[in-house]
């Protein structure tokens, strides 16, 4: 599976051709990352320099204190803690519960299997807006508002994860299970000791997606939390957008940078797993 075979329907590369390819890719890559450059550039500017007639890429004075000011403007330390706790809990949970369910769909036979799978899949197509208000009412009846329960429990399972993991499990050879059965291994043991370790790329992929999605989630945390101490990072970004006064652009950009940084870091570190996982699951459709 790890053969990186060059499969291009083009003749062997000559230097000129290689240069062209690099040029094109470089150009595209530049287009991809220049918004980030602008974000960082603005985060280091003085407020007076944000809206100049000609766009200024390099600030005349580097206001690193914007980051300190942004951090102080709201309890971002607490927001970070909350975001981390919630995102990690949700990710671990989705991986565990999702893998269990995916295994059932991939390898076990039971009545209602297809219908159930379709049902799970169908939930992916439900827009958040439908479930938000009733879910919120449920939270208040359970007295879970403004607690970690409300932020974590409703998100403990994800249809997308189940779908991807099932696709992945389907690609694993059946012989593994038959061998395990002959050895007298229970299904759960097989699941834990054989299946999961083999599924690292797929788990990494689902894990990162889930982490990402939850880290950036804004509307739900806004609705279910009402005290500052329970807020998450994206909600914290709102502190810089004022109603009748002015949005503090430089602080907003600085805060956005430190909201995005951890995710970017996670992605950089786990990048290989992630891309491998995505590519494998994307193959079988």
């Amino acid at each position, binding site marked *: 599976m790890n053969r990186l075979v060059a499969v291009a329907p083009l003749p062997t590369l000559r230097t000129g051709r290689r240069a062209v390819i690099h040029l094109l890719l470089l150009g595209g890559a530049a287009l991809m990352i220049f918004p980030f450059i602008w974000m960082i550039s603005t985060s280091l500017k003085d407020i007076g320099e944000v809206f100049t007639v000609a766009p200024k890429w390099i600030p005349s004075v580097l206001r690193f204190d914007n980051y300190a000011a942004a951090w102080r403007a709201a309890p971002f330390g607490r927001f970070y803690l909350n975001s981390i706790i919630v995102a990690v809990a949700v990710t671990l949970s989705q991986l565990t519960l*999702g893998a269990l369910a995916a295994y059932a769909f991939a390898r076990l036979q039971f009545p209602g299997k297809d219908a159930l799978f379709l049902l799970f899949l169908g939930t992916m197509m439900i827009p958040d807006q439908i479930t938000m208000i009733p879910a919120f009412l449920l939270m208040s009846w359970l007295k879970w508002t403004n607690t970690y329960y409300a932020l974590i429990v409703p998100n403990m399972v994800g249809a997308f994860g189940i779908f991807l993991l099932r696709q992945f499990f389907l690609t694993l050879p059946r012989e593994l299970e038959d061998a395990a059965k002959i050895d007298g291994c229970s299904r759960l043991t097989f699941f834990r000791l054989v299946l999961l370790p083999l599924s690292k790329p797929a788990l990494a992929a689902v894990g990162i997606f889930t982490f990402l999605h939850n880290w950036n989630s804004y509307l739900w945390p806004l609705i279910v939390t009402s005290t500052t101490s329970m807020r998450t990072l994206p909600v914290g970004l709102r502190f810089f957008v004022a109603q009748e006064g002015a949005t503090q652009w430089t602080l907003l950009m600085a805060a956005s940078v430190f909201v995005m940084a951890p995710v970017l870091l996670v992605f950089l570190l786990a990048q290989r797993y992630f891309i491998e996982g995505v590519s494998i699951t994307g193959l079988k459709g």
Partner: protein
Amino acid sequence: MAVAREAGLPSPAVLRPWLRLQEALAAYVFLAPAALIFAAFIIFPVLFSFYLSLTRWNLLEPRKAFVGLENYLTLLRDPVFSRALLNTLYFAAGSIPLSMVLALAVALLLNQKVRGMAAYRVAYFSPMVTSTVAIAVVWMWIFDPYNGVANYALSLVGVPPLRWLFDPGWAMPALIIMRVWQTLGYNVVVYLAGLQNVPETYYEAARIDGASPWSLFRSITLPLLSPSTFFILVMSIISSFQVFAQIHVMTQGGPLQSTTVIVYYIYQHAFEGYRMGYSSAMAFVLFAVIFSLTLVQMKWVQRRVHYE
């Protein structure tokens, strides 16, 4: 089965249904935690929402007035709803093919055994990890009619500046451009993986027969990429029909409702007008549309996608 008889177990005829039951029970146990959460936090809200769609309620009145199918009938006659549907289709039709074609191009380039592929991958993928709310502000600046980079770029090729997000005709194209930027990386990765799984032998054989690069692409690469294409298509349609954050931050559905997509219209009714019943009805219609589109694609797949 010989193994079973030797081990002194009952005959297969008796064993099989018991094994099947055991298997089904195991399956249910594996599914139980996930199913429970789903039932409580997704199925229940959906059902409740459906019930709401048959009422008129503004969240504060203690009683919900039952109005039957009235909301759905009103929907049929709502010109803004049809507009929103069209806008959503425009958004999807504008961004998906473009993103896929560009992604394929980039994937083909990246597949050329160039150095620094990992770095390129990170660069192309980075838009996917950003929070839409944070990056939307940057894009608003990019499309600024007076000082934005987009118009600056246009001026380099002699095109007069556009008002982009402030022009009813150009707001949606601007959002489409941003969407392509956001989704390109993911599609590139999927296509890259797909490309790397096309066996070299096919190409060799065809080249021996004297096939041109273009026909190699058309008759080998494209068909063998169809699973990836299909996957991207299904995922893209589902997600593009649910796009919301960009619109909320950048255009608020305007100008002149040119960027009001269905989810945004639902949001306006539910969270700004507090018309719970009407917005629930709309949400269900949206769900039905997405569901049918997906079903259609699945059926279409049976005939068109080539699996190995």
